[in-house]
């Protein structure tokens, strides 16, 4: 499948199978995203928040980590992260449709991920709280002398919350195995990054005595390599790393937002052309990991899975009303 010369992905330790899987998951994330929007528009779901334009960085980061071993504290656009960590389109669709079988049993908005089996930590809406949770998870890894890391991501707007600073400092003082990834998609709702962030997010790491790395978020191999190195640093006790992935939020903030109030179509179109998935596809074609036929079948398989997931979730029942009363506290008091 691969070309004769040593490809870039092999040089950084990724097999052909892995890059193909990465590509497949990027597609899943993209197709899921497009579908979720349609479903929302049709009135069947209440809300969608899109990750389009960020899938490459998300999938690449997650592939540099160890599934069901490392912990993931993603944020709400991280479809690429959670799909890489082990969630299925089936599960994402149940989450979108807020049905009883959803991990959250229909309690939370779409994009509020949780999956304990896959080490995906339950998320909330108030931004950046998860950044401290990741630090706590990293602390527990050190206490138990386990070689796991905690990965957390957040937007550049959210990087301004006090919790992020407190997390950086805490992790820096104890040299904890945590990877902070800022997905800098240029906007926090309507506010462009330069009106939101003084200086550069990546430069903040130095103030806490750990490295900050800025990467092209549309280049999955660059992201992968940065996260992989960060993971290596983390497990050898050298402490946290901050990665700032430069991206662009292609969609409006959410289905409740009209982005044409604060940016132009041209600007968005320009960035659409930089699409990381298309670039990655071209790369894979070029180095022979992918050909048109394989691409077609990969795409078909993704669509099949998506269609099934959609159909199932659409028909699945809502939670029963009284379920609202369940699980405020442990049923048996916890008893640990």
């Amino acid at each position, binding site marked *: 499948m691969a070309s004769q010369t040593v490809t870039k992905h092999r040089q950084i330790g990724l097999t052909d199978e892995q890059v193909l899987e990465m590509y497949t998951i990027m597609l899943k994330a993209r197709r899921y995203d497009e579908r979720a929007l349609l479903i929302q528009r049709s009135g069947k779901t*209440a*809300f969608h928040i899109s990750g389009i334009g960020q899938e490459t960085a998300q999938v690449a980061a997650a592939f540099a980590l160890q599934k069901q071993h490392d912990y993931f504290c993603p944020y709400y656009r991280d479809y690429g992260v959670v799909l890489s960590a082990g969630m299925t389109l089936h599960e994402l669709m149940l989450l979108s449709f*807020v*049905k*009883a079988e959803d991990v959250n*049993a*229909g*309690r*939370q*908005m779409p994009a*509020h991920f949780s999956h304990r089996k896959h080490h995906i930590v339950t998320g*909330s*809406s*108030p*931004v950046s709280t998860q950044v401290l949770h990741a630090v706590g998870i990293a602390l527990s890894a050190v206490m138990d002398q386990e070689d796991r890391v905690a990965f957390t991501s957040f937007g550049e*707007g*959210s990087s*301004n*919350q*006090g*919790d992020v600073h407190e997390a950086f400092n805490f992790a820096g003082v104890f040299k904890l195995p945590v990877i902070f990834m800022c997905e800098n998609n240029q906007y*926090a*709702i*309507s*506010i462009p990054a330069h*009106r*939101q*962030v003084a200086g550069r997010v990546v430069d903040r790491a130095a103030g806490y005595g750990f490295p900050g790395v800025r990467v092209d978020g549309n280049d999955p191999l660059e992201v992968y390599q940065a996260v992989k190195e960060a993971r290596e640093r983390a497990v050898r006790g050298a402490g946290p790393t901050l990665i700032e992935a430069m991206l662009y939020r292609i969609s409006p903030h959410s289905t*409740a*937002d009209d982005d044409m*109030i*604060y940016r132009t179509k041209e600007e968005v179109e320009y960035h659409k052309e930089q699409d990381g998935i298309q670039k990655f596809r071209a790369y894979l074609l070029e180095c022979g990991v992918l050909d048109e036929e394989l691409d077609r079948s990969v795409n078909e398989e993704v669509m099949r899975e998506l269609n099934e997931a959609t159909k199932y979730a659409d028909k699945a029942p*809502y*939670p*029963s*009303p*009284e*379920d*609202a*009363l369940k699980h*405020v506290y442990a049923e048996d008091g916890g008893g640990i």
Partner: protein
Amino acid sequence: MSMLKTGVAYKMAIMTYLEAIRSAMSEEMERDENVFVLGEDVGKGGVMNATKGMRDRFGERRVLDTPLAESAIVGVAIGAAMVGKKPIAEIQFADFIFPAANQIISEAAKIRYRSNNDWQCPIVIRAPYGATGGGGLYHSQCPEAVFFGTPGLKIVAPSSAYDAKGLLKAALRDGDPVLFFEHKKCYLYVSDEVPDEDYTVPIGKAAVKREGDDITVISYGMTVHHVLKAAEEVQKEGISAHVLDLRTLQPLDVPAILEAAAKTGKVMIVHEDNKTGGVGAEVAAIISEHKLYELDVPIMRLCAPDVPAVGMAPTLEKFYLPNADKVRDAMRLLAEM
């Protein structure tokens, strides 16, 4: 449209609760150049459209887009207020007010008291709260009880466009920090007559929304509308409900509460916030302290159940939220007691 009030003809316009809030802000900004709004995305109009068009009118300094950091929004507002500004700090959703809890509780609420009146902190914090449907756990909360009972704060939660405008103006002319809770469901669902002329609604005064003789229902915010609707329904069955809208949660209008309770001797308190530790508990406690002998039956509370917040699925949401049907059933029960 016009109506006669204390002998003077006021020109009135029907407007939404949301428009009322916007017009209160705009008029106060015209009136006093120290008034300004700051918050996330307020420039484009805010995610609720409360500040729509205001940046064009007042410039981006007075309709100030801030970084995404609630403690900063409130803390900066406090600093500005201490030196003579009159900031309106917008919290995008009331669910996101907690990062600012320290600035609100430790600072805003205590600045006048701790300095023995040397300094004051006249900020207004606007926080859209409550469920609109499809907001889930974190875009639907009623966090008023967290701040209720913090002396030094004033807390307002209007149910009508008239009150929203009048109370927001009063808040903006007040010398102390006011938490202004705007029910998101009221924004577009509620419209009523609002005078063209400048007016205020005094902070600390409840309003009788309906006179009645059989039962007394005390509420605030969106549930006032459920109560009024239910009152209409039970009226047909011969139950006459007296309805009091608290409007201000802190300081509570104790005389109005006691009067309303004593009027019928059968009291129900309705709010969307969960029951335990809610504002309704204090209302019940006040009544049982001062009007026990005038109570014919136990004080009832109809509130959301004691779970963290409303679920996203429609089934969960319906189960959780008070509505006119639930209020009506409870009214019947109360009347029959």
